[in-house]
């Protein structure tokens, strides 16, 4: 039986939202951590997290100052921020709920429980002391779900859409973090050299990439090597290259999809093109890469989600790149 387009789309978004919640949690913890190590004047400010998540405008309508408590509340529990962790978990749950007949029971139960727990423990997220554990539990929660899906769900078409969603979201986050941190770490007129290593280490840590980087790159933690590792590495599962390859592999197991493949191959070529990366300003290079990721998403929608659609889909509130 071929899978319903709507189901494929829900699986894809469920997976993206789960991944988004996890990435956001990692990012906040890494940021909080590096703050404690750096002198005040070169600390990456909390509002750079807003830039990474592309939510400065939404933030400005809700809060006046981007201090630690405001930004972290905005990113963790703010219901009016569609990209907050709690909103992402809710969206993941709503998507999962609409495909409960596809997910195996435990998968749904864990997604449901993770959301309920994140809601119940909101006060923890507001205490700087307990926030780390709160976010860590969310990371572990998402990882548990990912493990459950990979380990107990048949690796059928449903699974491939989960993979596609997760990898696209991951690649997207990696490019965003690199982009913003690059700007942070090249501030005009300030000498960050003594701390640069520390900062790039935190970039790696926000993607849990530090240990793997150490094992696989025998060089010091410096900006070129970190950028290269996070974009090009073929073995680290959060590098752009790895994510795109994994999507290509998922696509191989799905019917049709030639238009998506085309876009994926373009993006992979781009990521590996070290020459052009050196020639272009990193910001422009990444901008271009993000456009390609957007095109991959559009191609997926066109190919799988919008089949023979007679009328535009009515209010499916949980789709859309929040």
């Amino acid at each position: 039986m071929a899978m319903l387009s709507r189901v494929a789309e829900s699986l894809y978004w469920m997976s993206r939202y789960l991944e988004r919640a996890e990435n956001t949690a990692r990012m906040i913890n890494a940021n909080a951590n590096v703050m404690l190590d750096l002198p005040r004047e070169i600390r990456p400010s909390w509002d750079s997290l807003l830039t990474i998540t592309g939510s400065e405008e939404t933030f400005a309508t809700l809060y006046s100052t981007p201090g630690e408590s405001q930004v972290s509340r905005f990113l963790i529990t703010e219901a009016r921020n569609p990209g907050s962790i709690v909103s992402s978990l809710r969206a993941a749950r709503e998507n999962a709920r609409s495909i409960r007949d596809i997910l195996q029971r435990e998968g749904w139960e864990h997604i449901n429980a993770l959301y309920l727990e994140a809601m119940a423990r909101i006060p923890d997220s507001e205490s700087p002391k307990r926030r780390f554990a709160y976010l860590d539990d969310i990371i572990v929660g998402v990882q548990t779900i990912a493990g459950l899906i990979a380990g107990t769900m048949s690796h059928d078409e449903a699974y491939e859409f989960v993979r596609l969603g997760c990898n696209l979201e991951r690649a997207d986050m990696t490019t965003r973090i690199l982009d913003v941190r690059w700007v942070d770490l090249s501030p005009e007129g300030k000498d960050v050299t003594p701390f640069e290593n520390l900062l790039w280490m935190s970039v790696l840590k926000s993607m849990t990439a530090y240990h793997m980087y150490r094992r696989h790159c025998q060089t010091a933690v410096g900006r070129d090597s970190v950028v290269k590792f996070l974009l090009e590495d073929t073995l680290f599962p959060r590098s752009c290259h790895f994510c795109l390859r994994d999507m290509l592999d998922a696509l191989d197991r799905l019917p049709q999809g030639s238009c998506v493949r085309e876009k994926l191959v373009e993006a992979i070529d781009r990521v590996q093109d070290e020459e052009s990366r050196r020639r272009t300003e990193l910001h422009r290079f990444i901008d271009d890469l993000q456009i390609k990721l957007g095109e991959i998403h559009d191609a997926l929608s066109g190919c799988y989600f919008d089949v023979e659609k007679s009328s535009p889909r009515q209010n499916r509130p949980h789709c859309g790149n929040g």
Partner: protein
Amino acid sequence: MSLALQDYPNPECFDELIDEHGMPRRIARALFDHLDGFSETDLQERKAAAEAEILSMGITFTVYCENEGSIDRAWPFDIIPRLIRTEEWRSVERGLKQRTRALNLFIDDIYHAQHIVRDGVFPRDLLADSRNFRPECMGIDPPLGVWAHICGTDLVKDKDGRFYVLEDNLRVPSGVSYMLENRLVMKRVLPELFESYAIAPVDDYPAQLRQCLASLAPVSNPQIVVLTPGIYNAAYFEHAYLAQQMGAELVEGNDLVVGRDDCVYMRTIEGLHKVDVVYRRIDDLFLDPEAFNPASVLGVPGLMRAWKKGKVALANAPGAGVADDKVVYTYVPDIIRYYLNEDPILPNVPSYRCVDPEACRYVLDHLDRLVVKPANESGGYGMLIGPTASPEERAEFAERIRRDPRNYMAQPMLTLSTAPTLVDHRAEPRHLDLRPFVLSGRDTYVTNGGLTRVALKKGSTVVNSSQGGGSKDTWIIDGKGA
């Protein structure tokens, strides 16, 4: 005794588990022997375990609220089961089969020659005024001549301890998934009890449902789908659950298209895929914007056309609701006699039809003692419970009845039976009803028991989940073994 049965008030009505001397009935002895061994803490632990189980399974009942979108509410569950003896159940089962057979013959007749009207057994005017009569269905021959494939019949026990039929739900009855889940929760929370009783299993329902639906298609391995209004529907959980358990596809209106060939297709990642049977959980009027409500975004344009041409089977068939009107209900005993030439096995609750002037006068004079129901509402909405209503409410209702007598029927206030229900840490009597489900396809099947709904508020008889009801597991048990 931890359950404090000595504090259990002597039943003023029929109690399912406790006799008139305040002692457990024979069938319930093993249950109470077991529960008596529980300390208060044990009891609270089991109750908490059940609640946790329900929450984690995501058994939620969505109560629609305009301002806040939808709210999830855990479906309240009581851990003390309701017990019914097998011998008693067999007779109920026969009665239900008889009743649904007659109702299906009635619906089929209504949409064809209308013999029952011509023979003067069923008044023509009633049909003309019926809100669920669909002229679009005249002359259509659904597969096997069956219209109401899934029927949820509400039964209550009165003071005399007999089952009465309160109403038939022939449109899109819900609740069966709660029956299934309740059993699952009980098995996890009180597994020991399953050792002491021989309890008839309920979990073959999805397989039976699949078989019933499949029997409606001309092909041997038909594509079956469950058509849901979507995740904001109160019964969405059930739609998903049944689809999953049957191995059917859960679809929303937008997932289906009717092709130029009048066949129904699903939109899939490989393109269009043909559908043979639609178990629809959407009301008639939203089913097909071409045929009914043009503003409906839930339905599938052209679905009626496909059904009429026999390209797809719909369960329940559109128009089946003509027989679950509360005024038509009062004719069911006559309907059974007319089509089957048999006496009804399960009695109706005695009813007054307001359309009959004499009965109407009686109803208006005795509003303080009667329950008045509109013909076409479900879920307990739009009812008047005379004895508890204020004089103003009664006066207002009287006016409504005078304006539209056809739309109302009245019944004496029944004293619904009770069963011990855990309230804090004591067992207290709470009123309940029972909704068994009847499947009619090539064969007829009745669930072993059904969904027992409990009015959790003291003294209340409103068991609807939308109005603060809860549920219990229902055990059909071999009386000899207990």
